[in-house]
């Protein structure tokens, strides 16, 4: 194993880690706002990416237009799901198990719809910055990876500032900490919950569009993306969206080192063993309870 191999792996791990972070943040935002772990989250990514592909290829619109179209699907689906399914179920005081089943059902239905209407083929999007690569210390870095990392960092910072600096962001946090306290402070708690699904859907779609130039996306991509996102969010503590960034990067780097050091086949074994262990022994994630996590 050479140094450049390790660096190459690290580079891949960081790139993947940011994707896991975006997905994990979306999951954590939704969880914090609604106490729902959204098993169909990866479908936000798949639908966002597939929509971008379709608009780009079929209608020959410019790339930026296709991306905006793809990005919009996440919030739209998120709002639809919250308003039509989650809200009535919360009113009936549904259990966690029922939300697992509900979102698994949605995951199946959306994945199968992609299969049915788009087909089995994987689709790629053009890389941002074309196929240009940088070579640093024998490490090949695609320009798209740099774009991906930069955009992810901007999204993370924007999200952080949104939660910290805007009253809307504070209201979202407040509604998740104490619903009754929020209602008596004049915050429309139900609307905040819809908003968390909108925001979660947007984060999912961003992740999907960013990864599609690197990995061909097909109807099976959603569930694995969700699972990695859940692992990232659990590592980060689940109630703290920014924890998912630490969780996602940790996960991405561990995975890539396992691929180099052990075998690619065992990366899921390791990832998900860690996930189980963290849930049992560190239920508040690797960051612990500190900081500004949620209720």
């Amino acid at each position, binding site marked *: 194993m050479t140094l450049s191999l390790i660096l190459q792996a690290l580079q891949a791990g960081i790139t993947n880690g940011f994707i896991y972070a975006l997905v994990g943040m979306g999951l954590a935002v939704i969880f914090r706002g609604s106490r729902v772990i959204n098993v169909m989250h990866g479908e936000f990514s798949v639908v966002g990416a597939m929509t971008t592909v379709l608009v780009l290829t079929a209608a020959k619109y410019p790339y930026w237009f296709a991306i905006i179209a793809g990005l919009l699907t996440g919030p739209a689906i998120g709002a639809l799901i919250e308003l039509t399914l989650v809200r009535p179920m919360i009113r009936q005081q549904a259990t966690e198990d029922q939300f697992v089943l509900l979102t698994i059902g949605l995951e199946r239905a959306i994945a199968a719809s992609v299969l049915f209407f788009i087909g089995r083929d994987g689709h790629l999007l053009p890389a941002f910055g074309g196929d240009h690569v940088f070579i640093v210390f024998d490490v090949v870095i695609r320009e798209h990876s740099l774009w991906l990392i930069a955009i992810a960092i901007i999204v993370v910072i924007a999200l952080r500032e949104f939660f910290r600096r805007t*009253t809307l962001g*504070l*209201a979202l*946090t*407040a509604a998740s*900490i104490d619903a009754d306290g*929020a*209602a*008596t402070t004049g*915050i429309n708690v139900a609307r905040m919950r819809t908003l968390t699904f909108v925001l979660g859907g947007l984060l999912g779609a961003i992740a999907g569009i960013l990864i599609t130039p690197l990995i061909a996306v097909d109807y099976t991509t959603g569930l694995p993306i969700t699972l990695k996102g859940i692992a990232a969010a659990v590592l980060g503590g689940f109630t703290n969206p920014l924890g998912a960034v630490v969780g996602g990067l940790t996960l991405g780097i561990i995975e890539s080192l396992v691929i180099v050091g052990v075998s690619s086949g065992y990366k899921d074994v390791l990832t998900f063993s860690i996930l189980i262990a963290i849930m049992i022994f560190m239920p508040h994630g690797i960051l612990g309870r500190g900081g500004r996590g949620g209720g």
Partner: protein
Amino acid sequence: MLEIHSLVSGYGALTVLHDVSLSIGDREAVAIVGANGAGKTTLVRTICGLLRARSGRVLKNGVDISQTPTHDMADHRIAVVLENRRLFGELTVRENLLLAERRGRGARKVFDWADIYALFPMIEERLETPVNLLSGGQQQMVAIARALLLQPNLLIMDEPSTGLAPKVVKDILNVIKELRGRGMALLLVEQNVGIASAITDRAYVLALGRIEHEIQPGAWDTFLKDERLVKAYLGS
């Protein structure tokens, strides 16, 4: 200012309030006293819309607000301080207050930040502290401040003295008196009759979900010596 007619309310199979009627006039301070389990908290939750009444009406200045969602109570200039304060623990004092200010912005402004600092000097010092690092008494003050920034003319408080040391309670009572001086109407829900009598004009005694007795203005002292009080609170 606030009129409640034949309110019936409860949780699931359990009916807690049976036919409760009461009223509060402009600038008036009224207490609801009663033992635990009498339905005091249920009454507060029903008035402010966290719990839907099974029947009966709640009128604020003649407008029926029994279907108004809790988050729109500020439109009717009602603010509530719930039991246990219900602050946003990880957010700072400033952030907690900011959220209320955002909602109270449209209403006629009665309280601004300067008023808050004047009423609670401690808040100005601890603005950037997360509220869960404050003492119980300080938290209670933040909770009252948060309610005031909704610009109410009726303040409803559920057990503001719970779990607080006597000295802290005294501080809070002083603030409430100050607010009364500024014309605020007050509905105070209290288990502790001594506290209730110190700051309200009259009271309703709630027992097993019904108004059992009314204490008229000026009758607090006679009531406090009344044998019925001992019976209602300490058993026979």
